[in-house]
């Protein structure tokens, strides 16, 4: 669990750094700050997640790409939402969209990804 938190802290810092380094050059209008994601303007939001994340978070991209979610084309927004409701850590209910039975049966005190690591999605850790 601790490793999990550190991982997301790391991602958040990376995003924060990305936002900071681009802020100076940014002069576009309609910039919307989105909680949990660097600010992008409306036009930039028409960019598929993977276009940037291949480079911004290459390890996560590769983990996803090689996972069953990657092979089956389950895309970032299906778990993380889009900019208006973006969640770095998805709501568990988003897993239940496809894995409802497993969701009902899992231990209440454990998140899905404590056994099925995020972006790898092994059957069990």
């Amino acid at each position, binding site marked *: 669990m601790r490793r999990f938190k550190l991982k997301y802290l790391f991602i958040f810092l990376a995003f924060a750094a990305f936002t900071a*380094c681009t802020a100076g050059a940014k002069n576009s209008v309609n910039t919307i700050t989105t909680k949990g994601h660097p600010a992008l303007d409306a036009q930039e939001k028409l960019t598929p997640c993977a276009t*940037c994340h291949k480079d911004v978070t290459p390890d996560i991209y590769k983990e996803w790409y090689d996972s069953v979610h990657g092979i089956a084309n389950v895309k970032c927004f299906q778990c993380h939402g889009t900019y208006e409701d973006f969640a770095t850590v998805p709501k568990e*209910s988003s897993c239940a969209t496809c894995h409802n039975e497993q969701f009902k049966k899992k231990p209440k005190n454990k998140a899905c990804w404590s056994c099925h690591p995020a972006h790898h999605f092994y059957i069990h850790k």
Partner: protein
Amino acid sequence: MGLSRREFLKRTAALTAASYVGINLPFDNKGTSHAADADSWHKGTCRLCGAGCRLELGVKNGKAVALRGIADSRTNKGYLCMKGMLFYKLMGNNHPDRLKKPLYRARKDQPFKEISWDEALDIAAKEFAKAVKKYGNNSVAYYGSGQALTEETYLFQKVMRGGLRTNNVEGNPRLCMASAVGGYLTSFGADEPIGSYTNFERAHCFFIIGSNTAEAHPVLFRRIMRRKLDNKDTVKVINADPRVSPTSRIADLHLQFEPGTDLALLNAMAHVIVFEKLYDESFLRDYAVFRMGKDKKQVSFEKYKEFIKDYTPEKAASICKGNITPEKIRQAAYWFAKSEGTMSIWTMGINQRKRGVWANNLIHNLHILTGQLCKPGADSFSLTGQPNACGGVREGGGLCHILPAHRLVKKDKLRHEVERLWGIPEGRIPPKPGYHTIAMFEAVNQGKIKAIWINCTSPAQSLPNCDKYRKGMRRDDVFLVVTDIFPTKTTELANLVLPTAFHFEKTGVYGCTERRSQLTVKAVDAPGEAKPEVWIVREWALRLAKELNDPVIKKCVEPFIGKEPDYELPKAIWDEYSQKLTKGRDNDLSGATYEVLKQLPDGVQWPAPTKEWALKGGTDIKFVRGLDPLADKHAKDQKPFQFYGPAHPDRKLWVWLRPQKGPEEMPDSEYPFYLSTGRVIDHWHTSSMTGRIPELMRANPYAYVEINPKDAEKLGIKPGDMVEVVSRRGRNVLPAKVYVGPCEGMVFVYWHDQAEDRMINRVTKDAFDPGSKEPEFKICACRIRKVSGPKPLKPFLVELKT
């Protein structure tokens, strides 16, 4: 780790837009699934492909808030793709663009004005009646959809045929599965697949040809992927396609052939099977005959051998080019023939061909030769693109040559049977089939059709060579009614736009790829004054009866008068169709009443002649005694398989002698590239629905032209450059995706985009298969050139101006 602002902008230059003119994305987006918030869940079927995934709609305070999969459904086992999990955002008042009032204009250059339903139905009835009186019954037409509910298609065609006395009844399934129908009828004697999705978990070899299953049928692909990943060494996947696609990721062998050479490839695989004695001699002896030519002349196995002798793997490799070698063809043939169960899967790459029926026949040939049928994991399985192309249109009588329950219009006995069942005078349905789709829109161009009703589809964008046919639809002497939920390229050309209820806002049945009928019951209210189509047709028919002073038109809807439209009306229509029309036919659904369908998590597979059989789920595999009640009923001998299909009186499977034939239009010095088109996972057809879901629009906001890196280098094209794609018919300018996808000499364009510059059916060709009349969307000749570097682009969806 980071990406500089400059790099970011460079990367996204071609992807971003200066404004959102023309679209209305709800940026107060209600967000992803509010699953936890729902206070009730309602079972139904997915709306956005032919897989038939079962799902539940979460509703809170009367509003759709989430969708989730149903785990005990045999179609999807709980899984949904992104389209399936998000289309609740289009329901009820969730989307501001929904059509909510009838709209009318007398001339097509006028703005629309809102009118009442009474006025709208009167106008529709008067215009159709006027055309019939002045120009005859064949001056009117209906063009429907594989997304309409079975009850809707059935009622529309009943009123057109029995009421208006015309077989001008067509639908967009002509564009996607007509060649598969032709293939099944001519090879197996009966339409629709023999087996079911259950074979995904039992197959040992998958032969996927002309299908990007991973994007077009993602949840079915997941099952194939799981089967492969769980049995990496023992399950083989062969992917045959001119384009490397996401489906190729799980392939052991990718056969990349030049477009239009597939018949040579398939014949060469048959060559290996025959001459290396991989065929199943006893299966052939018991169940197969060989035939050739238009007169279906029966020939000997020796004659077939003589024919196939010429298709050596060496010769086929020289025809197919791409990465094809004789060794790869032999390998594919061995895996196909020797596996414990081989399942072929295909869609539009095979069907949308000038020789689509032949291509279907040659896949079936491989299965008949090797006996890879009627046993676990073995099937020749055409995937259908739309949720109700099979159930509504193929089975419900939604094409110009077929009546409900697989009856041919031209057969007097079957036509009169339908007239009797409907209680209308004998001879009321004309004996001649109506216009097929391309002929229908050609007739619109020529002014022969004066009034046409287009339901739940957008031919102005989805027809090949669409500019040619938009000219006809623009004519002021052609009265055009469109029923839909959002503005489309076709509503732009209409006189009368009628707002309809969307999925889960009305009740009805979808029949998916595997002969499975599933019920969706209304769970939320439609927005504004939007109405279910069955109500619209009934009310229109009653007015038509008065306008034409014809009591038989009224007779067509008489059993349904007074029924409330949300449940009782579709139920009454389904009862008539399933109990009367399908009873005793090969798609017998008389056991599958609404009550039965509601009891099952995933519906019923026909044949289901009794409630008892239907409650067991129906028939998983056709033609096998003990597993298919009709195989037992129609058995003529003790053999385990009984091929009782209505089209083969000899009760045999037919192996066809079909030669290699290329496309209608080959590349030449002026147009040196093959152009092919297809879907992307995030969008459905013309994107009038998926384009309005922010997650899906953002994931694929524009159509691209995919270009092989070697071709791109020769032409100086870099990723994101704007590229002109020109054919003899039209022109697009699209951003480039330089990608080892299409083979050299071929480009590939996504077809969902509504922007005029990126609407690829302005470029495609309207040649069609002489048997199935399905157009050859998948192949034509084009030229390409870079017109500029990356440019800002606008996503585009039609708005309707009032």
